[in-house]
């Protein structure tokens, strides 16, 4: 009886980890899986491949849940999304097979290092996102017409219909391929790269970009998940707990997000994320035996790095933004 109680506690603690990850993921806009993988592997001692497998499946749940709301509001551009899915699904196949290769050859420390770098690298564009609501108009190119990239949506806040014309479809496809690879390799949605592909390359409005990216994440993750399944990287006990937890967490996050008036609170979460990113990096180096430090030192170094990085980014983004505003 006590054994079952102990296992029930273990299940609940993973659900709790999922809730925390889902909440932070949706508050920062990076997605639950990006937080979940470090949490599971660093704090629960779950093998990284099971952590990425469980995250990949949980990603589908959150993506489908929120995509349901956005397609109803007609902000998501399903056409552009499916066109770009050609590249993300192909990338997901390459990424998941790479994960299989890495795991079969005991290079799993590489996953930690790549994860750490991707997490830290996606922080910067995520922090700077949302500075401008509408993109600067760009001249339509050949791909705009051929791939039918024009569209419009009704903006509730601005109370007007916003029209847009996507450009550089080919460039977005290339970026999406890498987004797919990262998704399959690390078990995350890689929303940051998908946003880069649509916002920067295709010049789509931020609302269309984020909602369409969210819609695409589910299809990309479904491709990776099935490869993960057949290779035994999905542990049903963990996946069941995280799917539940992350879904609840992203729901809570979305509710809190509407209520937060002081946007500076987000910086606390950005700090947590950079801490997790550096921890993953150090843990990977540790596992590869390049670096040999005690867990305590690892934590201290990570905290210091996280604080320095976030303070620097804060001054660069917030203060720099104020200066620009005054200049205008």
């Amino acid at each position, binding site marked *: 009886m006590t*054994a*079952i109680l102990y*296992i*029930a506690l*273990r*299940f609940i603690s993973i659900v709790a980890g999922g809730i925390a990850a889902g909440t932070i993921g949706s508050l920062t806009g990076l997605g639950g899986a990006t937080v979940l993988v470090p949490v599971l592997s660093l704090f*629960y*001692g*779950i*093998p990284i491949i*099971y952590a990425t497998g469980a995250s990949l*499946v949980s990603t*589908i*749940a959150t*993506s*489908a*849940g929120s*995509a*349901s709301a956005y*397609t*109803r509001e007609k902000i998501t551009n*399903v*056409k552009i999304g*499916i066109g770009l*899915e*050609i590249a993300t*699904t192909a990338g*997901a*196949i390459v990424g*998941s*097979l790479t994960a299989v290769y890495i795991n079969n050859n005991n290079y799993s420390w590489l996953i930690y290092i790549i994860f750490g770098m991707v997490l830290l690298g996606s922080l910067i564009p995520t922090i700077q996102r949302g500075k401008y609501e509408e993109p600067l108009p760009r001249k339509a190119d050949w791909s705009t017409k051929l*791939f*039918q990239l024009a569209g419009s949506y009704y903006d509730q806040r601005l109370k007007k219909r916003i029209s847009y014309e996507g450009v550089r479809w080919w460039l977005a496809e290339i970026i999406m391929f890498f987004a797919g690879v990262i998704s399959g390799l690390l078990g995350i949605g890689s929303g940051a790269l998908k946003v880069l592909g649509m916002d920067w390359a295709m010049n789509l409005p931020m609302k269309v970009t984020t909602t369409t990216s969210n*819609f695409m994440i*589910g*299809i990309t*993750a*479904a*491709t*990776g*998940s*099935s*490869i*993960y*399944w*057949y*290779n*035994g*990287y*999905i*542990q*049903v*006990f*963990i*996946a*069941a*707990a995280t*799917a*539940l937890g992350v*879904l609840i967490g992203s729901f809570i996050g979305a509710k809190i997000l509407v209520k937060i008036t002081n946007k500076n609170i987000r910086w606390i979460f950005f700090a947590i994320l950079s801490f997790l990113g550096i921890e993953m990096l150090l843990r990977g180096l540790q596992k590869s035996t390049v670096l040999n430090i005690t867990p305590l030192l690892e934590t201290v170094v990570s905290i210091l790095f996280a604080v320095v990085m976030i303070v620097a980014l804060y001054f660069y983004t917030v203060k720099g933004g104020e200066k620009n505003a005054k200049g205008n």
Partner: protein
Amino acid sequence: MQKEIDLDLITSYILRSGVYISLFFIVFGTILLFVRNGGLNQTLSSISNFNNMNFNSKFIPLGGIPNGIVTLDGVYYIATGLWVLIFTPISVVFIAIIDFIKDKNRLYVAMSIIVLFNLFFAMLVIPRLT
């Protein structure tokens, strides 16, 4: 215009119900695991031991799902939930194809088929290669 509205609503509805159905199977499966102290001839403690590399999705034959559902096997219920989740976004691509066919948009019909090809390549072809 009317037709587009319908398909967007159906997409939204399918996505949401997919999540609910899968959650039902996952939660019910988890309860079964605890009540019956395991599933798929494994004890609960070996299923919950995540350092156990001998129990994971590789050892859950999908063909066993119908029988597992009938015999109230928790592992198969969770597996069903997870696969419902995987198929949820895929079904949206099917709906999009219907929409593109109605619009006689050949380019996008072809592109959706490529996406589906990739998906099923990952599901059906790659498992047989490795």
